[in-house]
């Protein structure tokens, strides 16, 4: 089973050039993703967590080939994506789908839900026959818990949760093997989030899907993921299976993140020790020397500003980028 690697990301780097525009700001390079490596096994869910600007979404966009990586490799089913030509890429793209945070802005407001789901079936020639396409749309709607008559509605006539179901049906239409879920529940009301999470889990079991689940909510990530990678300033600082990461976090950043998550229990909260980090995430334009976390780290030592910690296997299957781990 561990050999069944679906996606292999090796040393992914994505830098953006900024500045020097109309107002002549200083030129610079944003190191959005700075040497990220991980693998995804078929049928598993890897959670990718971190705060805004940590590079989790850019990592997802590179995998989706919506961004050209600056360097590094992305192997999907053994094929290197970064060097594929357009025709070959289009075939692969079918297999890698995405679910966005805001279903409203990712659905065409002038198309009915049925048309939105049917369109890629025609464009990619998955179901060329129109009559059968309608049947397939009904089938997809039922997979995501919607009724056939929902196909005649427009996105604005649906609630947030229903729209996210449409987004999921559209992704499923392509019969993908990998779905990049980019904050798929964070724009939804709390009472609806659980519905969508359960749906994603059901679909994974039914269709053998593999998920890259990008989110900032650590409780949701723990629920849905088999393994979890924590990102900070463009790097993975810790990577482990769910249980080890949450029960025994090795990186001080992971520990601080976990302690910052509020728990809906006043008794417990009153006793809980909270690690409040100093300062804010530095700019990826000018990341700190050595370990990028050292200016905020509560346990930093003399060597941290000079030594770049490598992501190393501290315990079997549990990786951390901290010299003290």
């Amino acid at each position: 089973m561990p050999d069944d690697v679906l996606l292999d990301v090796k040393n992914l780097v994505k830098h953006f050039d900024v500045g020097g525009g109309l107002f002549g700001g200083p030129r610079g390079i944003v190191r959005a993703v700075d040497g990220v490596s991980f693998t995804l096994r078929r049928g598993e869910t890897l959670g990718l967590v971190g705060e805004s600007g940590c590079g989790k979404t850019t990592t997802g966009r590179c995998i989706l080939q919506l961004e050209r990586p600056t360097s590094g490799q992305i192997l999907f089913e053994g094929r290197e994506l970064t060097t594929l030509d357009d025709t070959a890429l289009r075939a692969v793209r079918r297999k890698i789908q995405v679910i966005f945070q805001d279903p409203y802005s990712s659905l065409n407001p002038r198309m009915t839900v049925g048309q939105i789901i049917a369109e890629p079936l025609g464009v990619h020639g998955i179901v060329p026959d129109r009559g059968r396409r309608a049947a397939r749309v009904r089938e997809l709607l039922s997979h995501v818990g919607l009724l056939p008559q929902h196909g005649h509605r427009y996105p604005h006539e649906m609630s947030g949760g229903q729209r996210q179901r449409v987004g999921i049906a559209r992704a499923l239409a392509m019969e993908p093997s990998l779905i990049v879920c980019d904050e798929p529940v964070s724009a939804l009301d709390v009472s609806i989030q659980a519905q969508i999470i359960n749906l994603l889990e059901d679909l994974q079991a039914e269709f053998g899907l593999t998920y890259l689940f990008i989110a900032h909510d650590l409780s949701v990530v723990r629920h849905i993921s088999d393994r979890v990678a924590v990102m900070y300033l463009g790097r993975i600082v810790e990577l482990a299976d769910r249980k080890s990461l949450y029960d025994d976090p090795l990186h001080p950043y992971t520990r601080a993140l976990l302690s910052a998550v509020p728990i809906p229990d006043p008794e417990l909260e009153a006793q809980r020790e909270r690690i409040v980090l100093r300062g804010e995430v530095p700019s990826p334009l000018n990341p700190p020397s050595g370990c990028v976390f050292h200016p905020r780290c509560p346990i930093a030592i003399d060597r941290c500003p000079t030594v770049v910690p490598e992501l190393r296997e501290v315990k079997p299957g549990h990786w951390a980028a901290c010299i003290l781990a």
Partner: protein
Amino acid sequence: MLHSADVGTLLEVKSLRTEFVTRGGTVRAVDDVSWDVNEGETVALVGESGCGKSVSALSIMRLVAAPAGRIVGGQIVFRGKDLLKLSEEEMRRVRGRAIGMIFQEPMTSLNPVLTIGRQLTEGLEIHLGLSSTQARARATELLSMVGIPDSARRLRQYPHQFSGGMRQRMMIAMALACEPALILADEPTTALDVTIQAQILELMRDLSRRLGVAMLIITHNLGVVARYADRVNVMYAGKIIERGTARELYANPRHPYTLGLLRSVPRLDEARRARLDPITGQPPDLSRLPPGCAFAPRCAFRVERCTRETPPLRPIPGAGHVSACWEAEHLTVDPVHA
């Protein structure tokens, strides 16, 4: 005891009703709602989008957007005076002076073309009549109070030069500037990252304790409320459906909606569940509410009466707090109808 108008009551909202006229008909965004805040206390209004929590706060400030929206009934008694009876001029003296505000998105509530210093000193000069030198000194003091270092330089900067967390600190400084008795904080940390959220919430709590300022926190996040609120009001479809001390309400929820919200979120302090227990169905359309209890269509404890009669907020025997549910005495963790 919690609801008596004892000496400590700072703000008392009585039977407030705020409506919006929409193409789909009249929407009762806040529908006969009563609650209060005591001096120095932190009270939460919790609920999902469209439940009326933000409109409640806007109603207190009389900032509901007319002509579509208007307050059609009730009283908002602040320090013994009904704010709904004040002239616009008198109301302006309440806003930002006696009652401060903090919003979710600080960038949209700060003026992008004025320096941070000017935005802080403006209120001090208008409301407190300070000279520009005095206002400047007070602004410096306020910035350091909310943990913004290097205040002399910071006062010359513009909002876009501040990070999200710094802007929210700045909003807190502005809200505190005129030493208000009450701060309304509408989703104060929702737009912030988890670690910054923790910093801001700790700061708000410390300051409210140190300065004795009461706070109304409006949020959808039950976790945030657990740590910081003394009392909690849960709203659904324009009504308060449950209210109690935070400890009471979390330990012993007596409304199926509150119970459902608590049960549906995965929690870091519990063993991972194989499946989450969502609340079924969709949030209600306020222009087409069903008769009876608005939550009934989604409720696992529904009985026949629920679809006919709207349950009033009433004390629940043995619970020590109030709930608007006919079946409040009979709620179990696993609903019988599930």
